[in-house]
């Protein structure tokens, strides 16, 4: 009996503990109404005042956040006459910075680019409107037919180790990139055919052919200029040396990086960098990220949990931002498989999907279902907005299915953790509803990455995400038969040829027509079925600012982040 009483006591304690873990009582000044709210530039959210449990986000497809297209910032201009915090703790993303090495193939993710923006300067960069390209290490530049380029370099620029920056450093960078064929810098610099150093601050570069998109490519964070001498002296840490606004003080791979301000940075002549030290930290657990923001252990967090976002949205203690990104989530249908390459089957899948629900589940309400038929990034240039959506219509899906080669086989849907686990459930359910048997094959990211390889890709459908660059030529990575992220194993010689011609076409009108045609072909062939693109969700403490959102995930800029202190 005593043991029984003790058991009951312990259970009661457990229940008390669970009760303690119940929903947080809302602060009186926090108004989170029905719907997950809209994210305006300053985080003004919608509040319906409806008598619903404010902690439970209710679904309303008409009330999904609109987001903003183009430049959005948290407070951007530095306020005057105030004091700034010396140190900032940033939680950019869940994924960690594994390496400070742009030449390392595994160190090219979004979070790495944040770090590279702090450490390196590029020849060119995006202006405050994140559309206009302006000079950075290059004070001015010119080109002939997008093939012959001349860069006039800035003087008085020094690397973190004190070496002066000269034209030779650009050559060194090109040569370093050329021996790292799996890296992004290799992609950026490989069109370079030859160069000619005129003097320490002038260089001419000749490309293999016309490349209208190369100008934008040079603004990418991984197109930074390296210091060859530092790399030679210290192969492991030489790549930590750049000319950027911050230098690395401490780095724990896959965990945290600590930066100190580079007080010799040339950019200080034009714009103040208010923060002396900055930590880019990795916190894996979403709940922990939210808690750290609420407790003040972090000043800024990207990608808080969607269901936690309303907590910050209307709170006077936080500033928020929900810009649209070019991050497109899609299904890749294996073009080498007889079932998933069948056009009727592909149409059946497209009509079976309830994109609104999938988008909501996949993004927690902070995303948009595709309303047209192209896989193109919503913010990418030369998008063809006239391609119709294959709308959610189960009857039509069943019709197409009946005409397809499908005969009741189990369709393997591959998805990687933690990407869209919930959304893939819904995709499978939608397909089941029209008579397609599915098996969800959850795998880790490397296993999913291995699916790019046609020899390995024996599955049917894979759930993927791609961050589209704003330049139209990015499509070739997905659509060309040899494309690096051709996750469908798609091959269409006509399209390959069209992609080659479009990439070097100098006439903007003809170029746009070509890219529209490319999208039409892809819409017909359907190697990919676009699902949704998402809003980036950002939260900063009140009086935090200086972060701007570019239209692609890779162009975050933390250099001017600040926090006003009382």
């Amino acid at each position, binding site marked *: 009996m005593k043991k029984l009483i003790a058991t009951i006591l312990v259970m009661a304690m457990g229940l008390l503990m669970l009760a303690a873990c119940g*929903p*947080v009582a809302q602060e009186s000044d926090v108004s989170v109404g029905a719907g997950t709210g809209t994210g305006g530039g300053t985080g003004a959210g919608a509040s319906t005042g409806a008598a619903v449990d404010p902690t439970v986000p209710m679904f309303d497809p008409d009330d999904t956040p609109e987001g903003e297209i183009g430049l959005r910032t948290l407070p951007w201009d530095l306020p005057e006459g105030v004091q700034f915090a010396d140190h900032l703790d940033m939680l950019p993303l869940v994924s960690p910075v594994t390496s400070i090495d742009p030449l390392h193939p595994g160190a090219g993710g979004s979070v790495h680019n944040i770090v590279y923006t702090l450490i390196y300067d590029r020849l060119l960069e995006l202006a405050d409107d994140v559309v206009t390209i302006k000079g950075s290490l290059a004070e001015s530049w010119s080109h002939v037919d997008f093939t012959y380029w001349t860069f006039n370099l800035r003087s008085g620029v020094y690397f973190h180790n004190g070496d002066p920056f000269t034209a030779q450093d650009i050559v060194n960078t090109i040569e370093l990139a050329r021996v790292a064929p799996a890296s992004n810098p290799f992609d950026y610099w490989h069109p370079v055919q030859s160069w000619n150093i005129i003097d320490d601050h002038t260089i001419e570069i000749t490309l293999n052919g016309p490349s209208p998109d190369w100008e934008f490519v040079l603004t990418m964070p991984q197109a930074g200029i390296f210091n060859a001498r530092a790399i030679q002296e210290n192969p492991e840490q030489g790549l930590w040396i750049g000319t950027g606004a911050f230098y690395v003080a401490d780095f724990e791979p896959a965990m945290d990086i600590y930066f100190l301000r580079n007080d010799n940075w040339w950019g200080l002549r034009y714009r103040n960098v208010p923060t002396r030290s900055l930590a880019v930290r990795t916190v894996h657990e979403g709940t922990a990220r939210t808690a750290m923001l609420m407790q003040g252990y972090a000043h800024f967090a990207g990608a808080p949990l969607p269901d936690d976002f309303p907590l910050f949205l209307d709170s006077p203690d936080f500033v928020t931002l929900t810009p649209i990104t070019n991050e497109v989530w899609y299904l890749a249908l294996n073009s080498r498989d007889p079932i998933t390459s069948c056009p009727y089957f592909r149409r059946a899948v497209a009509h079976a999907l309830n994109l609104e629900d999938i988008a909501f589940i996949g993004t927690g309400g902070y995303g948009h279902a595709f309303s047209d038929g192209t896989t193109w990034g919503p913010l990418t240039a030369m998008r063809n907005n006239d391609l119709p959506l294959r709308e959610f219509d189960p009857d039509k899906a069943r019709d197409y299915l009946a005409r397809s080669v499908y005969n009741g086989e189990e369709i393997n849907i591959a998805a990687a953790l933690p990407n869209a686990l919930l959304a893939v459930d819904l995709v499978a359910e939608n397909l089941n509803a029209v008579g397609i048997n599915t098996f969800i094959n959850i*795998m880790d990211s490397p296993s999913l990455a291995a699916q790019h390889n046609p020899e390995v890709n024996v599955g049917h459908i894979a759930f993927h995400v791609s961050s589209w660059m704003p330049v139209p030529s990015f499509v070739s990575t997905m659509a060309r038969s040899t494309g690096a992220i051709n996750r469908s194993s798609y091959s269409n010689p006509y399209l390959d040829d069209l992609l080659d011609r479009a990439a070097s076409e100098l006439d903007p009108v003809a170029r746009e027509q070509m890219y529209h045609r490319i999208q039409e072909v892809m819409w017909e062939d359907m190697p990919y079925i676009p699902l949704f693109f998402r809003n980036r969700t950002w939260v900063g403490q009140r009086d935090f600012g200086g972060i701007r959102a570019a239209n692609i995930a890779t162009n975050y800029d933390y250099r001017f982040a600040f926090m006003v202190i009382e």
Partner: protein
Amino acid sequence: MYRYLIKRILLMIPIIIFVSFVIFILMELTPGTIIDGMISEAMTPEARQELIEYHNLHRSVFYRYGLYMLNLVQGDLGVSDTTGASVANMFFNRLPNTLLLVGTGLVIAVLLAVPLGVLAAKRAGSLVDNFVTVISMSGMSMPPFWLGILLLLLFSFHLGWLPAAGNRDGVLSLIMPAMCTALMMMAITTRQARSSVLGNLKADFLRTARAKGVPEKTVVRKHALGNSWIPIITQIGSSFAVQLAGSVVVETVFSWPGIGLLTAQAIMNRDVTQATGNIIMTSIMYGIVQLIVDMSFALVDPRIKAQYSGKKKKKKTLVTIPAAESPQLAFVAASVGSEVPLEGDLYIEDKDADAQEPAHTQIVHSVAATYADTVPRRLELSEPLDSGAQSRASPYREATSRFSDEDVVRIIKANRKRSQLGDIFYRLRKNKGAFVGLIVLSIMLMFTISSIFIPRQAIIESNVRNRLAPPSSEHWFGSDTQGRDLFVRTIYGTRYSLAVGFGAVTFGLIFGVLIGTTSGYFGGKVDDIVMRFADAIASIPGILFGMVIMVILGPSLRNLIIAVGITLIPGITRAVRSSVLQISNSEYVEAARAIGLSNFRIMFTQVLPNGLSPVIVSATAFLGISIVHGATLSFLGFGIPSPAPEWGLMVAQGRDVLRTAPWISSIPGVFIMMAVLAFNLVGDGLRDALDPKMKR
């Protein structure tokens, strides 16, 4: 002493070679290579080929392994494929964090567990004792990942006292991860301390001490506790080694930059070099901790010290070892490479013992001896009342002399009416804890049976407009992130946990029994080789091993059973082998040999049937462990694929809405805990029911 040390260190070499080979080969079998992650639009086929050659992927796996080992013997663990940093540097940078975490957890556990255990022992049978017992049983049953997120929610979210992640905020950062780490160690150590002290409190030498007028405090502290340190230290050492090697879950939940998190990330990123290096280093650490534990015995027990320093000669070794309350605990420890001394004054006659054989090894034998003895002794002790003059003179007879002979005969007959099975069930039923456990298991079995009638559509059908609905009359347990009814899913999920538990233990038993029987029966070189293999496998952290296997096999219930079951094999092998070692020297086995039965026949008709019972009884502990292990793999994303409502997966799916909908994670977490607790309670009860001393 030094010879022994050197011998133990040399023994680590084959273990390291074996572990490195197993992990290297397993990592090679995982889908994809490091090249697959190297995406570059402009990479030419030539450049790709160059990369392949750079990583030696065009050569055989054995060539690459040979190359790896060549570097390893030169002290070079290689360079991480994902970070480009030295594997050794990465490991040793992270090691202090893990040592700090586990060490703090250990200190907390010991500081709480020993006084609690002593208190419970002093007040055995009281409410306090039962409270401590249930608390410790609950602690052992609570999945660490679930506890972690509950702590996070309580102390970071609601109370705002502690930082939620990382290690950059000083002592405050350490509290929650250390608490989480401490709980499991504390639970097991409390039980160990209680049983050891309790055993000593009843010993004759304490009665003598009390008779001499020694104060009760001194009796307990100096004599009872003082003589209980060996099993407690063994337990602490084993727990420390296990946590050191398997801190992956706590480190993941709290983003604690330790070696567990580093290794898990390496496996997930297919970083063969880092993963292999880490696991090798972890195995070495594991061996070192076990060695330190063995050495520490000499500090607390002069008899063992004498053995270490004695000259080599064959003699009979007689060691008195106090008890552990639960053979399950011993099996848990055995499964991870350590052993817990068992209950009672156990005399080991070690015919071939080397005088320098460590106490650690002797304790292995003692565990086996006790298991092997459990059933036969029970049968023997049920006889004495009827065995003539000898029994009439027994103390038992004297104690019952106030009854008439008729009463005694009636009682005996009443007892004899029950069959062996009925007798066991009778005593099981009298054990309240076990009875509660049986009820819980029965309910879960009913859930499993009733779930047959739940259409699959009911568990997968989403209703996004009804997502995150709190518990109500419509949805008893609320709804999940996709609006699916949690009650139906939780009930349906019972089958997965039970299947993983029973399936993995069955899998482990099949192989463990075969290998253990062969090893124990033949002994000698066969035994040496098999046990070194078992040691090597046991030194690989179970969760990490399971992760690698799941990556290779892919997500499914069957594969999860295999992944969990494989990690149980070394423990079961060791236990079976110990049991068989005792039996294979018995007279009836010698008789079987004498009449010319084949080894195979003797093993499977004489030895195995007599040695299996205690193993099967103790396997109940493995059921609980398997459920937690399976749920942990699912929680980490390596288990049963969605949309199956496996409890660990459900906890994982709910952790992103922990603040707004805590029921999604909490309810499956409670179910996991209840299932494990029930198995542990029944296991304990079963052990008691089969223990003759408990009958007395």
